[in-house]
């Protein structure tokens, strides 16, 4: 049973990091479909950098940087050039798919996967729990209270929420709306980039398209979790749990197809409000244009 708990935590890690990232972007009013592409780019960067430097830490830092860069591109497209936020997000996901594969040919002469990378090795003294729960999983869990504190207890958090709810009002108070939104989007890149690093460092390989839709599931978790850090944690743990169940229990009456559909069904249930209506920031997806 404890093994199932650990599996849940590991499976939830990339979803949680991407979900928290998405929260910072969307609380500021910017829809972020690019999470999928950021995860993939982060995974590629972490594997490549740690392959060449031999350091997993360097890989994670580079993945965070790459994530912020891709997120910055999303912010540039949607805030500066006024491209529809959904369109920009989808375009970035396509770009990430093509770009990572293209770069894989350049760095590794393979369209399929990278060479093996070492990843994090757990220190002997802590080997008990750390072999089951990777360091990035612990970081992801710690990120939840920190994200809550930033969002609800700091000046930046207040401004972010206000531009997400009513950018005109925020603007009239002298808040630079687009700057605050940019910061929110960049934060989403930082967090989702780290989530990508978890994918490739934990599997010890980068594999083409290895994000496998996890960015979209993170978005579903964000909605199901009502754009709230605690909610996102609960939702990603639930999705991680249903996903892990498949390997741990051989239940014939619970079809795999149903389990895989579950995150999306739950999201829709949350949207129509069966268990407490889920409502996003008021100005979500609407571009603020200063007169």
């Amino acid at each position, binding site marked *: 049973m404890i*093994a*199932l708990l650990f*599996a849940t935590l*590991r*499976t939830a890690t*990339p979803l949680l990091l991407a979900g928290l990232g998405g929260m910072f972007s969307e609380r500021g009013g910017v829809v972020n479909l690019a999470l999928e592409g950021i995860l993939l780019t982060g995974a590629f960067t972490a594997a490549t950098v740690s392959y060449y430097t031999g350091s997993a830490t360097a890989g994670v830092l580079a993945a965070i940087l790459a994530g912020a860069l891709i997120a910055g591109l999303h912010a540039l*497209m949607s805030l500066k*050039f*006024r*491209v529809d936020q959904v*369109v*920009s997000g989808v*375009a970035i996901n*396509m*770009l990430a*798919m*093509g*770009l990572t*594969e*293209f770069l894989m*040919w350049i760095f*590794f*002469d*393979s*369209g*399929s*996967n990278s060479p*093996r990378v070492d990843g994090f090795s757990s220190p002997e003294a802590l080997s008990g729990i750390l*072999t089951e729960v990777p360091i990035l999983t612990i970081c992801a869990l710690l990120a939840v209270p920190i994200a809550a504190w930033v969002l609800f207890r700091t000046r930046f958090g207040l401004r972010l929420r206000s531009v997400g709810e009513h950018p005109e009002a925020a603007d009239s108070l002298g808040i630079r709306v687009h700057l605050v939104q940019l910061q929110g989007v960049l934060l989403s890149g930082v967090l989702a980039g780290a989530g990508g690093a978890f*994918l490739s460092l*934990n*599997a*010890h*390989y980068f*594999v*083409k*398209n*290895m994000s*496998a*839709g996890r960015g979209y599931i993170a978005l579903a978790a964000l909605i199901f979790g009502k754009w709230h850090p605690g909610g996102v944690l609960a939702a990603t743990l639930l999705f991680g749990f249903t*996903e*892990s169940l*498949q*390997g*741990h229990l*051989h239940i014939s009456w619970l079809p*795999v*197809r149903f389990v*895989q559909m579950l995150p999306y069904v739950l999201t829709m249930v949350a949207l129509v409000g069966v268990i407490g209506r889920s409502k996003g920031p008021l100005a979500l997806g609407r571009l603020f244009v200063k007169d």
Partner: protein
Amino acid sequence: MKRMILLLMFVALCGLACGSSSEGERGAQSDDNLKVGMVFDIGGKGDRSFNDSAYRGLIQAKEEFGITAVEFEPGQDSDREQGLRKLADRGFDLVIGVGFLFTESIRKVATDYPDIHFAIVDGRIEGMSNVASLTFREEEGCFLVGAQAALKSETGVIGFIGGMKGDLIKRFLTGYSAGALAVRPDIRILSNYAGLTPTAFSDPVKGKELALSQIGQGADVIFHASGTTGNGVIEAAREKGVLAIGVDSNQNHMAPGTMLTSMEKRVDRAVYTTIKRLVQGSFQGGFNEFGLETGHLGYSLDEHNRDLLTPRLCAVADSLAAEIAAGRITVPRK
């Protein structure tokens, strides 16, 4: 207007990034050479498994017969048919689709280009004289590694992890189970699939989790038939100090000391034979099925696993192989 133009430029850039990555052309063009094109499956060239095996056959034929070989890697599902059509359009003599996912696309394109030869690996296309279907009796090879896994296991529990759920991968499991039960009737076999879509062949994160869960339930030898998802399976086995069995290509080198053996499916030989027949002018359309007795399936033994795969395990597998070839054992397919 400015926004539209920027958007268009952005989309074009994305297209460029996808397009440029998907096609690699190698080999000098010359008109009198036979031209053979190969389109890869999910996972792609460099997977150290299924696609690489097919690629080795292409390269061997290229070196031996001086054909012009061109590879194409579809970026997304929808590019599969387009890739085939493009090669057919350019007047290739033979176009090879690697993987059952190509079955429908090849059927369509081959109908439109009756003068061009096609081959499909792992798919069955009936009634077309210009299409050679190259299929394997995977269950026979899996039977051997299943027997080896069962005899090697100390816990009496062995595992199987498949990629996308479906008839093809099911056959791997059926053969593996039958082989294990044949030599050790009390063996327990755990099995999981990584998913229901083609991405199940390229999700090592999922593969690792499934393997960890099987190891948690006592499995100490795990066979994977899951493309690059299997990289994660092998990593889990390495982490927990149990054994893994590779698939399609010889994967022993990926984790010496962890790999008990690999179930080799010699797609390279099938591809090579098909090209050879084309060169000799004796291309055969229809079903070409390959099995154990022609050496298209088997287990790998090399310097990386010699310590693990004992002579006794090899002897058992060899005698089982002889019985299968002689028809005394029939390995179930379903």
